[in-house]
């Protein structure tokens, strides 16, 4: 478990908290097989993290490079801070480089955006209030 103090500047990220199963990736040429068994897919349901995110979007592209796209197609539950394109563009060059040589760095960045369980905005607000303006969130 990593704990990171997530700044309130995370407003640049859309928070997605759904359980997951990605049917779009099945059978795509060049992509990995679906890592989820039929039982896991059934448990994940149809409103999945992967299904909620654009397949060709920058976040899913990065997740795929790190092997995490299939994680987001599973039962979870996880909560993910998904940077928008402006955040991707503002990151230092190479931060979200999807080449295999950058997999270590990319994996670290992405897993620090994924929380254990289901965390709603109101839950974070309450935590910030309790801690007098600061919230520390456990990431996977």
């Amino acid at each position, binding site marked *: 478990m990593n704990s990171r103090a997530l700044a309130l500047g995370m407003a640049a990220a859309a928070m997605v908290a759904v359980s997951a199963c990605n049917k779009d990736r099945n059978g795509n040429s060049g992509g990995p097989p679906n*890592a989820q068994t039929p039982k896991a897919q059934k448990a994940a349901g149809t409103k999945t993290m992967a299904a909620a995110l654009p397949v060709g979007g920058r976040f899913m592209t990065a997740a795929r490079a790190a092997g995490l796209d299939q994680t987001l197609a599973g039962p979870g539950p996880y909560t993910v801070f998904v940077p928008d394109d402006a955040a991707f563009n503002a990151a230092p060059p190479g931060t979200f480089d999807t080449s295999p040589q950058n997999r*270590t760095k990319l994996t670290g960045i992405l897993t620090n955006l994924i929380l254990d369980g289901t965390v709603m905005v109101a839950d974070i607000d309450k935590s910030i209030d309790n801690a007098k303006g600061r919230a520390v969130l456990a990431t996977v």
Partner: protein
Amino acid sequence: MKNNGCLAPGQAAKLVGSPLSTAVTIAALSALPASVSYLYPDTPDYYYRYGDGYLYQVDRTDNLIAALIPLIAGGYLPGQYLPAAYMDSYVPDYYGYDAFYPDYGDVCNRYYYGVIYQVDCVTGYVDNVIPAYAGGYGVGQILPSAYSYYNVPYQYRNYYYNTADYGYWYAPGVIYQYDPRSSIITSVAALLSPGFSIGQPLPVGYDVYNVPYAYRATYYDTPTAWYRYSNGYIYQVDPTTQLVTAIAASLLT
């Protein structure tokens, strides 16, 4: 089909045994990057080609791809010797790695740059190279032969069971899916958190309520009991002492 930089591990493995001339029509192969070329010098028997993050050993006699080699940054391969300085680089306790990879007999586990090296304690001879997910080296790597048994934690076995097409393997923090024919890790099926023990203090970062939506009507925070989710379980926490007091529910079994 020319690859566009996203060759799947299973496809990469299928190139083993193929003529190099065929492989280059599928994957863009080139000389090794300078960062790793010193690790894989050409020999009278073999030379190496690199593409899409994969390293291929090519037999000079017939130009067939002889092997797919795990490409681990700055790494050492089975059959090499770990430098003496790395023998003091112990497996960290993060995520319970040290308990999962203990030393035993003449076998020592050492850790460097996201990789666990299983070595001879005396000579440093590398017997096995184990990618640690925290280092980002899981997907695309070959499952260590010594760890190819089914070891998925009990509460996840109902979801991640081996089939004829896919196998699942647990390592701290992650359940991998691998191809049983090539033993190449193809995906991260699930990310796991360490979970809690009864009586332990609530870890930092879990003061935020995180119970899955379907269980919130039952397990909600009160002045006398908090509920937190981790690793497939909902735990009860004493708000005063901040100690984990009970497992309230198992969501997977």
